[in-house]
């Protein structure tokens, strides 16, 4: 079963829920892989004190110009939809890497075949273990823009290597764009982690639009439940109106403590309220309730 743990808004606790859920299931002797797709700033491994080793680099296609063959005809410039190529007439061809999205039109149209496939480094995929839990982490190289491509590469790697596993838990980045869409695609179940705040609800509503457009099954986890000053009735009303099952994870200082200390709450404080709630979520998943 592939479970995507997302949320729309950042900071709702996706990573905490994803990691703790994965640890619970692994402790129950299932074969579990946890995939960190928050490639801009991956944090899963900070809660697991796992050593990571690089298993693959992620490259982005970019065109490479062979200057000796280039006749400065400018056909590539004409056919670049993003204006990533500029011709200095009679002198040289300039390539602006930051504008290139890798469509390959230039390679197709060059009459001299002076443009070939090149590549640039986008990020890396790392792997590690925590007891019997397998961990895959994707990381974008700072300064690179194409987070989505690193997400894709990391996801494909994990699905290939662990395709016979019982559970693959995906830690999804914040947002509702293409990267989140790609990460949701293989999921059997989406767990949307939200918080009882106006901003949390607002972003959850937008995320639900994506989920419904993809016709995916989902449940909600209301994290930090009991947060003083939070909104409750509006949030519950939204979920109940949509017929979405939800679980509550209480606002728990022990959870915050465990997080700040780089530990999982279910191992560090197994009797605390938030641990019990996460274990409850794990049990329901094991029983196939969703």
């Amino acid at each position: 079963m592939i479970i995507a743990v997302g949320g729309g808004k950042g900071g709702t606790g996706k990573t905490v829920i994803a990691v703790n859920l994965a640890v619970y299931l692994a402790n129950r002797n299932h074969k579990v892989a946890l995939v960190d797709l928050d490639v801009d700033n991956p944090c899963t491994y900070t809660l697991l004190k796992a050593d990571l080793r690089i298993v693959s680099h992620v490259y982005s296609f970019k065109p490479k110009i062979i200057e000796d063959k280039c006749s400065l005809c400018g056909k590539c410039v004409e056919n670049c939809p993003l204006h990533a190529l500029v011709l200095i007439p009679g002198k040289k061809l300039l390539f602006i890497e930051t504008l290139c999205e890798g469509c390959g039109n230039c390679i197709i149209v060059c009459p001299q075949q002076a443009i070939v496939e090149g590549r640039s480094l986008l990020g890396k995929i790392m792997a590690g273990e925590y007891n019997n839990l397998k961990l895959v982490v994707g990381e974008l190289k700072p300064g690179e823009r194409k987070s989505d491509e690193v997400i894709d590469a990391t996801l494909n790697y994990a699905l290939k290597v662990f395709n016979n596993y019982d559970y693959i838990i995906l830690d999804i980045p914040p947002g509702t764009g293409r990267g989140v869409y790609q990460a949701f695609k293989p999921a059997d179940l989406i767990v949307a982690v939200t918080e009882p705040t106006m901003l949390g609800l607002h972003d959850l509503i937008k995320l639900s639009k994506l989920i419904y457009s993809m016709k995916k099954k989902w449940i909600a986890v209301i994290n930090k439940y009991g947060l003083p000053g939070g909104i409750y009735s509006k949030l519950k009303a939204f979920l109940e109106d949509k017929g979405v099952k939800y679980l509550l994870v209480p606002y728990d200082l022990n959870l915050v403590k465990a997080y700040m200390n780089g530990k999982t709450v279910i191992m560090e404080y197994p009797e605390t309220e938030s641990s019990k709630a996460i274990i409850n979520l794990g049990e329901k998943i094991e029983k196939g309730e969703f």
Partner: protein
Amino acid sequence: MTLELVVASGKGGTGKTFISSNLAFYLNSKGTKAIAVDADVEAPDLALALGGIKEIKWEEKFYGKIVTIDYSRCIGCGSCVAVCRFNALNMENGKPVIDEDLCEGFGACALVCPVKAISFIDIERGYIYRGTTPVGLDVFTGDLHVGEKNSGLLVYNLKTMAREAAYREGFDIIVVDSAAGIGCPVISSISGADLLIIVVEPSKQSLKGALRLMDIADQLNTEAYVIVNKYDLNVNFYETIRREFGERIIGKISYNDIVVEAYARMTPLLKLYPDSKPTLEMIDAFNKILEEMRIR
């Protein structure tokens, strides 16, 4: 020229929207005319933090392109499928089918089609609008439709619109609330800004994100300062952050339930609880920003 200030953080949930909404509100209250820009286009919340949109003054759609196939001309040769680098074309029953969720509309397929069966159509990918809020601030919001990419371009268009309005109407400063992360939309948000404010919370995860962001600020030649939010949740780690960023830290704000309450009531904290500890701490940090602005 209008000064442009961006608030970002690397990690999500640290308080970017909290800081940027209160900052814009504060600057306005001090007579420094500010306009707010919500560049978190996948999950825009800034207007909400300022009381919600009262009236939309102006709206513009953001378009992209996709391709379309004239099947009466198509001979099913499959050249288009072979050349598409986005996996947006697949052969089904001998004819190519477009996956509109993946098509970017760049047209490599159109270039190789031997019978010219492929052409382009515009599709809506998002929108930009300017709205008024109950607290007297105008907000420019970018909203990307779900599942779309090219958030960076939408952010660029959004900032361009805001810059022009600021120039035409004599605003002193633009405050940009960026998305979480360090990818395309964030780089686009920081690009061209005069000052970056990095919001950190006292955790290893947040510090990691902030350092990655600092790296990008350096690459983009943008001056960066740090505000530590919810610093009292882990005072020891706050010290670690202080050692890491030193002089760049212009303020620290304590955690308080009233922040959540202010959000629930959709009012800037500065307005709702003007004498509270986090408010005074924010004002302290904001005054340093004002000083910095005067120098420029």
